[in-house]
């Protein structure tokens, strides 16, 4: 399959001199699928290589598409079920999809305009080609935001992450902390009421249906009316009083696993028809993306496996301790709740901020699982641990690499002296 694709590309390659424009276009698509053959050629040993990142980025974005599809629909689904309408999953399909789009698109557009704008400006200032590094961060950021996040807060956080977290370090591929997580953690500490608590995970609860973006709803209503479908209506939908969109995690924190299953069934948690950040709820679609990333050789399976191991070991230890109901949640159910798999598939495996050595990846992943479970279960201040655990280990990743390399050098020096 890989060979057939490569043959196909070789066959259609245009002549660079005769058709320069066509060749540029060809090159753009070729580097989507394959990394170019140019490598850093010299005799020294390299830990990192200045390779073309485009293939890596495009594949990560592709792997996220199912999460986007499901996330968009789930925004609408959560909204309408909270209002007590269309409670079965596929009822009111067009309304849920339209509502999700109305919520998601502005977030997506603002994240990209701000992030790419800054990146273009820096590229022009520094006089090099645009690095496209924001494509992945920009695709990840909407997925980890609550659907009702105010757009100005989003803009500030993206600007902070891109300027301080990336451009200050020298641009794409040189950042130390994960950009998408940095923008989320910025909101988390600077505007906590907009990204934590029980009320923010279901969109449009306080405003009913058609208070904001009124005109947009009107356009959709016109369209649906012409097709003879249900309409949003003109503000007649009741605003829900006393609604709590408690997530499984906050329920578990209050009363353990039984308290969770009272509200959410296991299959709902598995398929992801629960409130949460936009793209992190649906486990099958995320795992599909994870498998895709492993097959294409983008993400490290070592990090994923060791992260599951770390989380399992820590939750087993907590089971043994069992001081609060949350600690008593069986370890395999811990993975049903929260954003573990999303963090594992798309955040921890970020090749720039993770450890680069293979041994380092095992340690790095294991510690993320371990620390993340500690933060989730033991820290009453934060509902979920993976974002903070990954940032925490991002800080230590260069240190892990340093000692792994040093141990390797020592071993080889010993072998060299032994044979000499």
């Amino acid at each position, binding site marked *: 399959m890989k060979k057939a694709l490569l043959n196909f590309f070789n066959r259609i390659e245009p002549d660079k001199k005769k058709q320069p424009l066509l060749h540029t276009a060809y090159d753009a698509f070729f580097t989507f699928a394959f990394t170019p053959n140019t490598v850093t050629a010299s005799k020294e040993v390299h830990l990192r290589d200045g390779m073309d990142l485009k293939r890596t980025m495009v594949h990560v974005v592709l792997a996220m598409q199912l999460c986007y599809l499901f996330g968009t629909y789930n925004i609408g689904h959560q909204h309408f079920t909270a209002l007590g309408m269309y409670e079965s999953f596929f009822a009111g399909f067009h309304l849920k999809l339209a509502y999700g789009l109305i919520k998601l698109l502005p977030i997506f557009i603002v994240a990209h305009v701000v992030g790419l704008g800054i990146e273009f400006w820096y590229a022009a200032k*520094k006089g090099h080609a645009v690095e496209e590094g924001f494509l992945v961060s920009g695709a990840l950021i909407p997925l980890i935001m609550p659907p009702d996040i105010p757009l100005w807060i989003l803009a500030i956080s993206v600007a902070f992450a891109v300027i*301080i*977290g990336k*451009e*200050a*370090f*020298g*641009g794409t591929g*040189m950042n*130390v*902390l994960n950009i998408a997580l*940095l923008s989320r*953690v*910025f909101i988390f*500490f600077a505007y906590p009421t907009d990204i934590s608590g029980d009320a923010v995970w279901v969109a449009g609860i306080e405003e009913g249906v058609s208070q904001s973006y009124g005109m947009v709803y009107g356009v959709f209503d016109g369209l649906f009316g012409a097709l003879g479908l249900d309409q949003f209506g003109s503000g007649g939908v009741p605003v829900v009083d006393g609604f709590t969109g408690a997530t499984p995690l906050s329920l578990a924190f209050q009363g353990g696993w039984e308290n969770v299953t009272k509200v959410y069934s296991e299959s709902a948690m598995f398929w992801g028809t629960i409130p949460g950040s936009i793209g992190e709820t649906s486990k099958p679609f995320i795992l599909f993306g994870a498998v895709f990333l492993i097959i294409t050789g983008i993400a490290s399976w070592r990090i994923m496996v060791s992260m599951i191991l770390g989380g399992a070991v820590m939750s087993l230890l907590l089971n043994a*301790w069992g*001081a*609060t109901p949350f600690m008593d949640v069986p370890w395999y159910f811990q993975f049903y709740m929260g954003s573990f798999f999303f963090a594992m598939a798309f955040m921890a495996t970020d090749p720039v901020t993770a450890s680069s050595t293979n041994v380092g990846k095992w340690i790095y992943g294991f510690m993320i699982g371990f*620390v993340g479970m*500690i*933060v989730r279960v*033991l*820290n*009453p*201040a*934060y509902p979920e*641990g993976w974002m*903070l*655990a990954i*940032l*925490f280990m*991002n*800080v*230590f990743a*260069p*240190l892990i*690499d*340093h000692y792994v390399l040093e141990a390797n050098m020592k071993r080889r020096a010993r072998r060299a002296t032994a044979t000499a």
Partner: protein
Amino acid sequence: MGEFFNVFIKAAFVENLVLAYFLGMCSYLAVSKTVKTAFGLGLAVIFVLGITMPINWLIAEYLLSENGVFGMDLTFLRLILFIAVIASMVQLVEMIVEKYSPSLYNALGIFLPLITVNCAILGGSLFMVSREYDLTQSVAFGLGGGFGWFLAIIAIAAIREKIRYSAVPAPLRGLGMAFIITGLMGIAFMSLMGIDPAAFASN
């Protein structure tokens, strides 16, 4: 034992002297250019904190307090006595390092004697007094605080080694970057802030 563990974890991770209180910044910023020297200085800080804390505890408890040997409130002497203890311990470390690792001694240069005025160390002793730790707790706090400082300095040293060849904008190279990294590390360390090991131990 449980109490020892609690205070240790809290001092090392939850209330890290560098990344939560921003104490001991001068040597932290100056010596963190390579992991090797940072490692040496970190060990020295662990040693000095771990030794001075119980000694200062004994001084505060038996010499300076009203129930002490002199039977009167001598707390106005606290700062000067603490510094004297710290300075003599640092002198001891300096002699040991010079004897056993001259290369590290040369690499650390003026920053080894400057541990004396490293605010993390005096700060540790003063925290100990104001939080009314007992002897075990103060040993744990000294070792834990030192370990936290050690972790922070080797982590930033590894990051600074890694970004040495990055295209950092010229005005930010060196200390500017070190400050930004420290701030970002502070955010990352906030993950553990708020955990109270003691709250679970009693159950």
